[in-house]
C-alpha cells in the first residue's frame, strides 16, 4: 500500500512537471508580445545562473560573490569566437562554456582551500579583476565601448529573426541545466558535496577528497555560467563590461539565497521572483534599486531559509516520520511536519 502511494506520488510529480514543461513550451503561441517573451528569456538566463551558483554556494556551501565574472568571460569568449572566427553559435557557446570552466579551475585550485569569508573576498576581487581586464584590454575587448554586432544565429538556412527561436533555445538550455544539476545532486558526488557543506572535517574523515569535490563543483558551476553568458551575448548581440559588475554577482547570490540554499526548485523560484521584481517596479524606476536593496535585507531577516528551503523540508519530513512511528508526541507535529509550539 505504502509502495503504491509512493509510486503514484512520484508519478503525479512527474506528470505535473511534464504538463508544466509543455505549457512553458507553448507560451510563445499565446503571447505575441515581444516584451513578455523578452522577460521570459531573461528569466531563463537568471535560472541558469542561479542554478549554477547554487551548486557551489548551496550544495557545496562555498559562498562565491564573483559569479558575474564567469558570466562575463563566457559572453566575451562566445562573442569573440563569433565575430573573429565566424563560428556558429552552436559551437561558440559550448567553447565559451569550456573556456569559462577552465577559468573556474584556475580560480578554484588556489582558492578552494580557503574558508568562508576569505573565499567571499577572493571571489569578489576576481570579479573586479575580470571587469577591469574587460574594460582595459582595448585591443581585444574594445574596452568600455564593448563588442557590438554579434551576428544573429543561423541553423542551416534558418536565421533567428524574432524572439521566439531565442526563447526555445534558452528553454532547451534551462532544461539541460536542470537535468544535469538533478543528476549531479542525486549522485554520490552530490552527496559528497552536501556532506562538505554540512561539516567539512567530518566529510574528510569519511574519506571524501573535499578539495577535489569543491574544485569540480566550482568548474561545473563556471561552465554553466559561461553557457549563460554565451547565450546572453548571442541574444543581445552586444557585450560590454557594464553587464558583468559585482551587482550582478550579488543579484545571482540573492536569487539562490531567496529560493533556499541547496534546492533546485528554490533556485528557480528565486530567479523568477528576483527577475520579475525589477520589471514590475519599472513604473517607479527611480526607487527600483532602493526597494531591491530593502527587500534583500528584509527577506534575509524574516525568511533566513528562503522560500523553498531543502533544509526545512528535510527536517519536516523527518518530523512527520517520527510522529508516524509514535516516537515523538504526535500533537507537537502539524500535518505538514512543522513543530507546533506549546502543543
Amino acid at each position, binding site marked *: 500500500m505504502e509502495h503504491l502511494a509512493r509510486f503514484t506520488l512520484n508519478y503525479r510529480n512527474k506528470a505535473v512537471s511534464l504538463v508544466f514543461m509543455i505549457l512553458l513550451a507553448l507560451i510563445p503561441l499565446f503571447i505575441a508580445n515581444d516584451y513578455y517573451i523578452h522577460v521570459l528569456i531573461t528569466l531563463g538566463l537568471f535560472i541558469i545562473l542561479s542554478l549554477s551558483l547554487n551548486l557551489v554556494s548551496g550544495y557545496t556551501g562555498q559562498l562565491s560573490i564573483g559569479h558575474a565574472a564567469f558570466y562575463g568571460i563566457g559572453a566575451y569568449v562566445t562573442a569573440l569566437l563569433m565575430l573573429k572566427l565566424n563560428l556558429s553559435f552552436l559551437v561558440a557557446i559550448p567553447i565559451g562554456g569550456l573556456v569559462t570552466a577552465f577559468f573556474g579551475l584556475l580560480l578554484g585550485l588556489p582558492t578552494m582551500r580557503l574558508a568562508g569569508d576569505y573565499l567571499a*573576498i577572493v571571489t569578489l576581487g576576481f570579479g573586479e579583476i575580470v571587469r577591469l581586464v574587460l574594460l582595459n584590454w582595448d585591443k581585444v575587448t574594445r574596452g568600455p565601448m564593448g563588442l557590438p554586432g554579434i551576428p544573429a544565429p543561423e541553423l542551416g538556412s534558418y536565421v533567428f529573426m524574432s524572439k521566439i527561436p531565442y526563447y526555445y533555445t534558452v528553454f532547451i538550455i534551462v532544461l539541460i541545466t536542470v537535468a544535469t544539476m538533478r543528476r549531479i545532486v542525486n549522485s554520490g558526488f552530490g552527496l559528497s558535496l552536501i556532506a562538505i557543506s554540512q561539516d567539512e572535517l567530518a566529510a574528510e574523515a569519511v574519506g571524501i577528497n573535499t578539495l577535489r569535490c569543491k574544485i569540480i563543483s566550482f568548474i561545473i558551476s563556471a561552465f554553466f555560467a559561461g553557457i549563460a553568458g554565451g547565450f546572453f551575448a548571442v541574444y543581445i548581440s552586444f557585450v560590454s563590461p557594464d553587464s558583468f559588475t559585482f*551587482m550582478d554577482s550579488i543579484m545571482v547570490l540573492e536569487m539562490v539565497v531567496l529560493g533556499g540554499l541547496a534546492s533546485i526548485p528554490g533556485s528557480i523560484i528565486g530567479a523568477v521572483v528576483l527577475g520579475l521584481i525589477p520589471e514590475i517596479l519599472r513604473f517607479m524606476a527611480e526607487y527600483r534599486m*532602493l526597494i531591491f536593496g530593502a527587500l534583500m535585507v528584509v527577506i534575509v*531577516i524574516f525568511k533566513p531559509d528562503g522560500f523553498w528551503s531543502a533544509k526545512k523540508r528535510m527536517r519536516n519530513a523527518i518530523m512527520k516520520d517520527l510522529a508516524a512511528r509514535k516516537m515523538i508526541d504526535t500533537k507537537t507535529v502539524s500535518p505538514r511536519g512543522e513543530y507546533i509550539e506549546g502543543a
Partner: protein
Amino acid sequence: MQQLIFGLANGSIYALMALAIGMVSSTTGIVNFAHASVVMMGAMVSWWMMVIYGLSYIPALFVAIAVSIVLNIVMYETCVKKLGDLQDNVGWIITLFGASIILDNIARMLFGTEPQAFPYLFGGKMVTFFGANIMLHELMMITIAVVIGVVYQTIIKKTRFGRAVRAVAFRPATSELMGIKSEKIILSCFAMAGAVAAIGGALIAPITFASYTMTYSIGLKGFAAAVLGGFGNTKGAFIGGFILGLIEAFISIFVPAGIKDSISFVIMIIVIIFLPEGIMSAKFFNRNLSAAEKV
C-alpha cells in the same frame, strides 16, 4: 617624491578603511561590506553641509561624523543583530550588500548623479618639498590617518574600554561571563568605524570628487588593505594600506590606470592564498606574542 606622497596619501585612506573594517570584524567576526557606502555618505553629507548650509569645513565634518555614526548603528541593529547567528556568513553578506545598495541609492536620490567638486583642505595650497610640488591636503591626509591610528591604538592598549574591546574580540562568550557588556562594546566599535568612515570620506572626496559612486573601487581596495594587513589587526591595517598605496603609486608609472587597479586585487588574492591572516601574521613579525595581543 611626488609619487611617494601621493601613494602615501591614497594609502592613508585605504588604511583608514581597513582600520574601520578591522574594528568591526575584530569584535563581531563579520566583514562590513557596506563600509564603502558609509564612507561615501560621510563625504556627501559634509559636502552638503558646506555647499547648501554654508558651514565651514570642521563643523560640516562633525555633522558628517554624527550622521555616519548613526548610520552605522542603525545598520548594526537592522542588518547584523537581527540575524542572530553570525557564524553563518550567507546572512550578513547579503544584508550588508543590501544596506550598501540602499545607502548608494539614497545618496543618488538626495544628492543627484553629478560628481561634485569638494574643497581641498587649506584651499589646495602647494608647497615645494625637495623640488617636488606637494599639496598640503595630501600631507594632512597622511597626518590625520596616522593620528587616528595612534589614538585608536592607545585606546585599545591603555584604557579600560580598550581592554574590554580586546576581550570581546578574543573570546566573546567568556568576556560576557566576566561582566563585560559585549553588546555595548560591539555598538561602540560600529560607532567608531562610522566616525572614521566620515573622516576618510571627507579626506578622499577632493581627489575622487563627491558622488554616489565615489567609493566604488576605493571600497574594494579598503578590503584589499584589510586583507593585506590581516583582519582586525590595527597595525596591519596601516601597513597594508600604505603598502597598497605605494605599490599603486609606483606601478602607475609603468602601466595604464586600469591595469593598476587590478594589480591591487591580484596582490590581495596572492596574500590571501599564502598568508590568510595577513602579512602581519608572518612568523617574522610576531615571535613572542600570544593570540590575545594581536588585536
